[in-house]
C-alpha cells in the first residue's frame, strides 16, 4: 500500500513548518482527501490560468478568484471588456489614472502581460459582486437616472459594457459610487470627457441611486 509523504505547512506563513510528515490511520485518509482536493484546486488553476506561476496570482487578493470580487469595495474584472481593462492598466502604469495600489503594480507589467491579463479577465464568467440591501425606491430612482443620462449609449442596454464603456451591471455599489464621485470631482478622468461631463451633473443623491441600481443588476451572460 502506498504511503504518501505529506508536505504541509511550510510555515503557512505564520504557522510553523511541517515537512514530510508520514501519516497513518484515519489521519491518512483525511490526508488523502485533502491532497486530492488540493490537487483538483491546482489542476483547475493550471487549466484556467496557465502553468504556475502567473501574474493573476497577484490580482486575486483585491479582485477575487478569477477576477470576480465578492466585496463591493473592490471592482470585479471578470467579464469586463478586454479593451477597457487594457486601457486602465496602461493608464495606471502611465500615472494617468490614480490609485496608490494600482499605479506601481501596473508599472511593473509589460505590454504583453497587460494584453494577456485583459484577455484572461474578459473571458471569465461575471457574477453580481455583492448583493446590496434591497431598496426598491432607490433602485427605481437609479433606473430613471440611468435612462435620463443615457448611460446605456456607452455601457450597453444591459449595462454589460458597450463599444466605449465598461460593464457596470453587478459591480459593487461602493466601488461604483466611488468612481462616479471621482469623475465628478475630476480625480479620475475619461479621455473622451464624457464621464466627467455626465458625472459632473449628478447630485450626491443621484450618484447614490445610480450606484445602487447598477449594483443590483444581474451580470448577464454574453
Amino acid at each position, binding site marked *: 500500500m502506498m504511503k504518501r509523504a*505529506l*508536505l*504541509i*505547512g*511550510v*510555515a*503557512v*506563513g*505564520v*504557522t*510553523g*513548518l*511541517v*515537512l*514530510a*510528515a508520514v*501519516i497513518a490511520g484515519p*489521519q491518512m485518509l*483525511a*490526508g488523502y*482527501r*485533502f*491532497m*486530492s*482536493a*488540493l*490537487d*483538483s*484546486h*491546482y489542476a483547475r488553476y493550471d487549466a484556467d490560468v496557465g502553468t*504556475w*506561476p*502567473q*501574474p493573476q*496570482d*497577484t490580482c*486575486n*487578493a*483585491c*479582485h*477575487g*478568484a478569477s477576477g470576480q*470580487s*465578492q*466585496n*463591493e*469595495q*473592490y471592482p470585479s474584472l471578470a467579464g469586463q471588456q478586454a479593451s477597457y481593462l487594457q486601457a486602465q492598466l496602461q493608464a495606471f502604469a502611465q*500615472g494617468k489614472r490614480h490609485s*496608490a*495600489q*494600482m*499605479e*506601481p*503594480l501596473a*508599472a*511593473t507589467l509589460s505590454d504583453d502581460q497587460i494584453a494577456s491579463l485583459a484577455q484572461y479577465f474578459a473571458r471569465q464568467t461575471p457574477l453580481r459582486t*455583492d448583493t446590496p440591501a434591497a431598496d426598491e425606491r432607490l433602485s427605481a430612482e437609479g433606473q430613471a437616472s440611468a435612462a435620463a443620462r443615457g448611460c446605456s449609449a456607452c455601457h450597453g442596454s444591459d449595462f454589460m459594457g458597450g463599444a466605449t464603456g465598461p460593464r457596470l451591471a453587478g459591480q459593487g455599489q*461602493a466601488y461604483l459610487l466611488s468612481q462616479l464621485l471621482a469623475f465628478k470631482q475630476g480625480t479620475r478622468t475619461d479621455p473622451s470627457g464624457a464621464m466627467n461631463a455626465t458625472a459632473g451633473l449628478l447630485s450626491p443623491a443621484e450618484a447614490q441611486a445610480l450606484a445602487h441600481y447598477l449594483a443590483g443588476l444581474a451580470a448577464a451572460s454574453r
Partner: protein
Amino acid sequence: MNTEDTSSPACRRRLLLQALAGVALAGGTGLAGRALAQTVEATPPDVLDVIVIGAGLAGLTAARDLHRAGCTSFAVLEARDRVGGRTVNHQLGGGVIAEAGGQWAGPGQTAIFDLARELEVETFPSYYQGRNVYLAGNARYEEDLSAAHGNPVTAKLNQLSRKVPSKEPWTAADAVEIDKLSVAQWLTNQGIDNASRFSFDTSIGLTTGTPPASLALLHYLSLINSADCSMERLEGFHGGAQETRFVGGSHVLSTRMAEALGDRMRLSSPVRKIANWDRDIVEIYTDQGLVRARQAIVALHPALCHQIVFEPALPEGRAQLQRLWPAHAPMRKTVHVYDRPFWRDKGLNGQISQADGPLIFSCDNSPADGSVGILSAFVRSAQLTHEAERASQTLAGIFAQALGDEALQFRQYHDHDWAKVDPWTLTCVGAIPPGFLTRWGRYLKPAVGRLIWSGTETADIWASSMDGAVRSGHRAALEALQALVANRRNA
C-alpha cells in the same frame, strides 16, 4: 530667505554653539543638556531642530531617542488622529484587546524587545500548541506541526540567504541574477509538489502580502537573512518571529512613547508638501499649517512619501523609488470573540489555512490568561463581503468546518481592511517584485538634502517587521543629530 537668516554673523555664532552642544551631547555629558537648553532659546521660535513625519513605531522611536538625547526642539506630525501606524488595537471590553495590525515578535528581534522592557510593556507567548487545520473544498485535514523537521527546499533557501545581506540585498554578489527570479519561479525550478506550493503560497502571502508569483527571490532571501538565515525563524511560531506577543497589544508601545512626548506629538496633521528640502530650513506644509525645521525624519512607507509634493522635485532615483515601490499588499484582518478558546480542549490551536476560500489563515489570539477566546483571521479582501453580518457568518462557518460548531457562537466581530479604513497606510509590508531592488534599492536609505528616511522598509535588519521599524527609528535619530552637528560646523 532662510539662507539669508543663517548667513548673519549672529546666526553663525548660534549655529556654532549648537554644533558644540551636539558634539557634547554625543558624549552624553551633563553639560550637553545645559548647552542645548541655552542654544534653543536663541533659536527662532518657529524653527525646530527636527521634525518627525509619521507616528508609527519608527517615527516615535526616533522622537524618543531625540528626546532622551536632550533635544527639546522637535515635534512629530501624524496624519491620523491616533499614533501607532500599522499597529492598532480593537478594544473588546474588560480591558481585552485584539491587534488589528502587526503584533508579533520573536528571537533575534532584540530592538523591539529592548524597547518593550524600557517602556515596561510585558510580553507573553503566542498560543500555538496543538494541531493545525487545513481546508480545501470539503476536505479537512489536521496535523501537529511540533514534530516538524526541515526539508530540502527550505534548507536550500536558508543556504542561499547567507549570501544576500538583509542590509542592502542589492549588493549581494549574484544580486542581478537572483533578482531576475520570483520566488515562485525558483520554487518551480525545485520541482515542488502541490502541498508545498500551498504552504509557500500561504506562508509568503502572509509574510510579504503578495504571492510567490510576484515576490522577488532577492527580497525574500534578504528577509530570511534577517532571521539568522532561517526561513523557519522568519515564518514560524515556535522559535520564530511569531513566538511572542505584547501584553495590551503592540499598539501600547506607540501610545507609551507618544505620551512621553506631550504636546510635541501633533495628531491630525497630514503633510501635503515639503519645500526647500535642499536649503537650510525645510518647510513642511500640513493641514494644520506650516512647520519649519532644520532636519526632517520622514518615517513613512515609500509609497506614502510619493503622496507628498516635494519642491523642488526629489532627485530622479529617489523619486522613481517612491513612485514604483509596491503598495498593492493591503491586509484585511478580522476578529471573532468567543466565551473561551474552545478549540484548545480538542487539541487544536486555532490555526486554519484554507486553499480555496476567503480565509488565508486564522490563529488563536486570546489574551495571556485564555479567559476569552479570540480567533484572528487574515482574509482575502475581495473574497469576503464587506458587510459585517454576512462576513462574520461566512467566516464562522469556515471556523466551524475546521474547529466544530462552537465556532458559530461568537460574541463579537471586528474587521480591519487596511486598504479601505483610511488613506494613511496604503499597504502592509514589502511586496517587492523581481528586478526592483537591484534597480532602485540604492536610493532607499541615503538622506536627500535635509530629509532623512526612516520606516521599517529602511531597516538594516528585520525590514518589514515591527523590530525593523524600531531599528530604523534609532538610526534616523542618530543621523538627524549628526546632521545638525555637521551643518552647524559648516555654517
